[in-house]
C-alpha cells in the first residue's frame, strides 16, 4: 500500500500509442514520486519498474511494444508499504482491471472486514488493492460505476484520487468528496486525447490544455462515447491539502484554479509582513521554497540571493529528499546541498524553507551556513508547525519523529513554538506561518483546507485514526 503519488490516465480517439503520452506525463510528475513507476495499457497489461521513469534505456523498448489507445500510469512514493515492485502501481485487480491511487485510506481495518466477508483475501493486501477489490464487488452487484462509487464513498474514509482502466477499455477517474489530493482533466486537440492527471504541469509537457479540475466527489468516465461525469457525493466542505501548495506540487501547476508558483510567492510576501525581520540577504532552501523567498524579498526589500546550491549533477543530487523512503538516503540528498560562501559570509541571513518536518534538513542547512560564515541565521517557514501524522496521503513520520511535537508537545502558542524550534535547531530565530496566513495567501478560507497535521483534528477524515509506529505503517 502506498501512495503520495502521481497518477495519469489517457484515452485517445485517434490511433496513437498511448504509452508514449503516459510516460511523458509521468516524467513530469516525477516530483510526486521517485520510488517506482508503471503504466497499464488496454490489451497489454502493466509494465512496472523501481526507480525513475525510463531510467533504464531498455524501458523504451518495452514501452514501445504496448500499443493501444487507452491506459493509465503512476509514479509512487510510499506512505504505506515498502518499496517493492509488487507495491508499484498500476495494480491489477482480478483480470485486466487496473487501478492507480494517490492518497491514503484512514479506515483500512474497517474496510478490510467488510471486504473479507464477501471474498477471502490475503491479509497482506494494500489499501489500493482493497479499494480495487471493494469496487469490483460493488460493481458486480450494481453493474453501474456511479452507484458503486456512491456506496464506496460512504464506506471509505480517507483521501483518494483514482484512475482506473476497466476490462472493457473504459477509463475511470474519481476524486474523494473532500478533494484532498489534486486531479485534473486535460485535452490534446489534434490527437483527440482526453487526459486525467494529478497536476496540470504534466499536461504542459504532453502538449495538452488544462480543461478543469475534477470536482471533489466526481466520477469521470471516458469511453467510446466521449467523456461523461457523475457526482457520487456532493459535499460542500472541502479539505484540499495545503502541503501541495507549499511543497508537493510543481510550481507551474494550477490546483483548484490557483497557480502554485504565485501562491508560494504570496505566502512569502505575507510572511514578510508578519515577521518584520531585519537581515542582509534572503536565501531559499532549494527548490520548493524559491518562489516564497522571492515573494519575501520583494515585500521586505531585502535582496534575494542563491546562498544554497543543490548539486544536481551528482548521482541522485537532483532528487527530493523529503519523499525519499529511507532516512539515510534522505540525509545523503540533503548533504548534496552546499552553501555559497561569498553570499553568506559575515551576513545576517534569512533562510526561507517550505516546512520543517523531522528537522533533519534544517539542522544540516543551519550547520552548513554557520560553517560558511553566516553571522546570524533566521528561518522563515511557509507551513505552520507540523505536530500530527498525516492520514490523507503525505508520508509524515510518526508523531515522535516530528520535531515540533518533540519539543512543544500540545502547546499551541506560536511564539513559544518559534522559540523552542529555534533552540532545537540552534539558530537565532524561527518564524512559522500560521493557518490563517497560509490560507489567505493561497486564496481560500481556512475551512477549505485540511490542517489535521497542524491541529490534530481529523474530523474531515470521518474518523479518529490510531497513531501507528513507522514499522506498522511500512509493514
Amino acid at each position, binding site marked *: 500500500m502506498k501512495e503520495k503519488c502521481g497518477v495519469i490516465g489517457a484515452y485517445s480517439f*485517434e*490511433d*496513437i*500509442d498511448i504509452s*508514449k*503520452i503516459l510516460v*511523458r506525463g509521468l516524467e513530469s510528475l516525477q516530483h510526486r514520486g521517485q520510488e517506482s513507476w508503471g503504466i497499464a495499457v488496454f490489451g497489454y497489461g502493466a509494465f512496472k519498474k523501481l526507480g525513475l521513469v525510463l531510467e533504464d534505456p531498455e524501458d523504451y523498448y518495452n514501452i514501445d511494444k504496448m500499443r493501444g489507445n487507452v491506459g493509465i500510469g503512476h509514479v509512487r512514493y510510499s506512505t504505506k508499504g515498502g518499496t517493492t515492485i509488487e507495491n508499484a502501481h498500476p495494480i491489477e485487480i482480478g483480470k485486466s482491471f487496473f487501478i492507480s491511487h494517490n492518497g491514503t485510506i484512514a479506515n483500512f481495518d474497517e474496510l478490510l472486514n467488510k471486504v473479507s466477508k464477501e471474498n477471502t483475501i490475503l491479509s497482506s493486501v494494500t489499501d489500493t488493492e482493497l479499494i480495487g477489490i471493494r469496487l469490483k464487488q460493488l460493481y458486480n452487484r450494481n453493474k453501474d460505476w456511479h452507484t458503486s462509487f456512491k456506496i464506496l464513498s460512504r464506506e471509505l474514509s480517507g483521501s483518494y484520487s483514482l484512475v482506473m482502466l476497466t476490462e472493457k477499455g473504459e477509463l475511470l477517474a474519481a476524486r474523494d468528496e473532500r478533494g484532498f489530493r489534486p486531479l485534473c482533466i486535460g*485535452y490534446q*486537440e*489534434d*490527437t*483527440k486525447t*482526453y487526459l486525467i492527471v494529478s497536476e496540470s504541469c504534466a499536461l504542459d509537457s*504532453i*502538449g495538452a*490544455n488544462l*480543461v*478543469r479540475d475534477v470536482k471533489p466527489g466526481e466520477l469521470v468516465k471516458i469511453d467510446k*462515447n*466521449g*467523456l461523461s461525469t457523475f457526482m457520487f457525493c456532493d459535499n460542500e466542505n472541502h479539505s484540499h491539502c495545503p502541503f501541495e501548495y507549499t511543497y508537493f506540487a510543481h510550481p507551474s501547476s494550477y490546483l483548484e484554479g490557483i497557480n502554485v508558483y504565485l501562491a508560494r510567492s504570496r505566502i512569502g510576501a505575507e510572511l514578510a509582513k508578519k515577521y518584520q525581520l531585519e537581515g542582509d540577504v534572503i536565501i531559499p532552501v532549494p527548490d520548493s521554497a524559491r518562489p516564497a523567498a522571492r515573494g519575501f524579498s520583494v515585500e521586505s526589500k531585502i535582496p534575494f540571493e542563491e546562498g544554497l546550491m543543490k548539486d544536481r549533477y551528482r548521482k541522485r543530487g537532483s532528487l527530493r529528499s523529503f519523499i525519499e523512503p529511507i532516512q539515510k538516503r534522505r540525509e545523503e540528498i540533503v548533504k548534496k546541498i552546499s552553501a555559497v560562501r561569498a553570499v553568506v559570509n559575515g551576513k545576517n541571513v534569512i533562510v526561507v524553507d517550505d516546512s520543517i518536518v523531522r528537522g533533519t534538513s534544517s539542522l544540516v542547512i543551519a550547520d552548513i551556513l554557520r560553517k560558511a560564515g553566516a553571522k546570524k541565521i533566521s528561518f522563515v517557514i511557509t507551513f505552520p508547525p507540523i505536530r500530527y501524522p498525516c492520514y490523507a496521503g503525505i508520508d509524515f513520520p510518526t508523531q515522535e519523529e516530528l520535531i515540533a511535537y518533540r519539543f512543544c508537545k500540545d502547546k499551541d502558542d506560536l511564539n513559544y513554538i518559534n522559540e523552542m524550534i529555534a533552540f532545537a535547531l540552534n539558530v537565532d530565530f524561527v518564524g512559522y506561518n500560521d493557518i490563517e496566513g497560509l490560507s489567505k495567501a493561497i486564496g481560500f478560507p481556512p475551512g477549505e483546507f485540511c490542517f489535521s497535521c497542524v491541529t490534530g483534528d481529523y474530523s474531515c477524515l470521518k474518523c479518529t485514526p490510531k497513531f501507528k509506529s513507522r514499522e506498522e505503517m511500512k509493514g
Partner: protein
Amino acid sequence: MKIMGVGNAAREHAIAEALERSEHHPKIFWLAEIRNPGIFGICKRTGGDFTLSKTTEPEKVANYAERWRVDFVIIGPEEPNFHGVPDELEKRGIPCVGASKDLAMIEMSKADMRRLQWEYGIKGKLLFKTFKSSQDAYIVLERYSDTLTWLQNVALKPARQAGGKGVKVVEDQQLYLHDEKQRFKSRHADWLEDYMKSYSDIDDKILVEEKVWGPEYTLQCFTDGKSVKGMPLVQDNKHAHEFDIGTETGGMGSISGPDFNLPFITKEEYDESLEIVKSLVQAIQDKTGKSYHGIVAGQMMLTEIEGPTIIEMYSRFGDPEALNVLSTLKTDFIDICLAILDGELSKLNIEFDKKATVVKAIAPKGYPDYRELAKNHPVFIDEKEIEREGCKLYWGSADLSEDGKILSAGSRLVEILAIADDMQEASRMVDNCIPYVKLLDGWGLFYRSDIGSYELLSKRIDVANRVRRLYHYRREKGILGKRIDWLPKVGKTDPVALLKNELSKSKGDG
C-alpha cells in the same frame, strides 16, 4: 407583401421570425427539406404557405416563387447559393436576397477564396497549398516533415465548404509524437480525398493551410454590392463538449454583446475585420462582374501572425450566429432586405439593441459522429415554460409529421436564446430552460452549460490578450504578416514570396 424563404434550420426559423416582426406584416412562404415546426407555424400564422421541396434545384425553387407571386426571396443556407438558385430567380425577375453562384464561390471553394485574397492583397491571409489527391498532399507534407517550415503545423481541410466538417489541425510540435502526427496527416488526407468524392463541382480536393491559434469570431454583414454594413460580432462554440473538448460540430452555441462588440475584441479589430470583408466583397465583384446583394460573413480569428485573419467566408448568415443578431435587430428586417435589393443600403441606419445574447443548441446523443442514432426520437418541448423564463425557442433539426408528432432529424434539435444585460445572466436563463426540452423515448440530449459563463469568457479574454500582444509587437516592428522558413542546404526562405510566385505562375498557365 409576400416573401418566400428557403431552408429549414434554426437560422431560417430566426429569419422567418424577423420577417414576421416587420411593420410590413408580410405573408410568409417557405420551401424546406424537412418540416421545421417553428417555420411551419409562422407560415400558417401569417397566412402564407409551407412546402417540402428540394432546395438546391433552381428550377423548382423559382417555380414555387412564381406560383406564390412573392415580392422577394431570401435564402438561408449556402447550398442553394452554390447551386445557382439566386441566379435562376433573378433570371425570372424575382428579387433575391442571397449570393449568386459565382459570388458564393468565396464560400464554396475555400481554395479560390484564398487565391482571391492573395491576388488582391487583402489582409488577414494564411499560407496555403491545394492538392487534387491525398497522394500529392502526402508527398509534400512528408518532404517537409523534418524541416522548420510552416508545413509542419497545418490545418487540413476539404477544399470545398462541406458543412463545417472535415477540418483537422495537426500540430507537429512534440517530438515524441512525431511519427503519430505524420500518420495523422496522411490518414486525414486520405479521408478528405474520399470525402470529397461526393462533390464534383470543384477541382481542388484538399486544402492545407498554416496552423494558427487565437480566439475565433464571426462578423456577419449586409451588403447591396456598394456598401457593406457590419452586424454585432458573434462567437460560435464548435466543440461538442464543455470547455472546448470533443469533436467539432456545426456549432453548439454562440454569444454576442452586450455592446455590439465581443468582450475580447477591440473596436479597432472590429473595424479592421470589416475592412477585410469589404475588400473581399469588392474583389469577388470585380472578378465576376456581378453585384453582391445579400448576406456575407467572415469567420475570423485573431492571430499572432496577421492580426484579424479570415479562416473561412460565408455567403449567408451563420447558424447559430444568425439568432444572436436577428433577435436584437431594431431596424425592420424587411426594410433592410428592400434596401439590399434596391442598392440603397448606405442610406439606411441599421440599429441593434445593446444587449448580450446567448444561444445554446441542444442535440440528441449521437450527434455529430453518429447521426443515425440521433434520428427519429419523439420530441416534447414545454414552450410556455421557456417563454416564462424569458427565452426564445428556435427549432432546428426537427421534423413535424402529418399527425402533429415531432421527431428529431439527427442534427441540433433546437436552439434556445436569451437576451439580457450581461452574458452570464443570459447564459443562466438558457440553462434554466434545458429541463423543458425532452425526448419522449428517454434518449439522451446534451448541451453546453459553459457557453456564456464567466470561466469560458475569461479563457477567451486571456487567449485574445496573448495573441494581441504578439501581433501588436509584430506590427510595431513592421513584420506583421512576414514569415520565415528554414530549409536544410537552402537556408532562410520566404514562404510568402514562394507562394506569390507560385500563384502568378499558375495564373500564367491558366
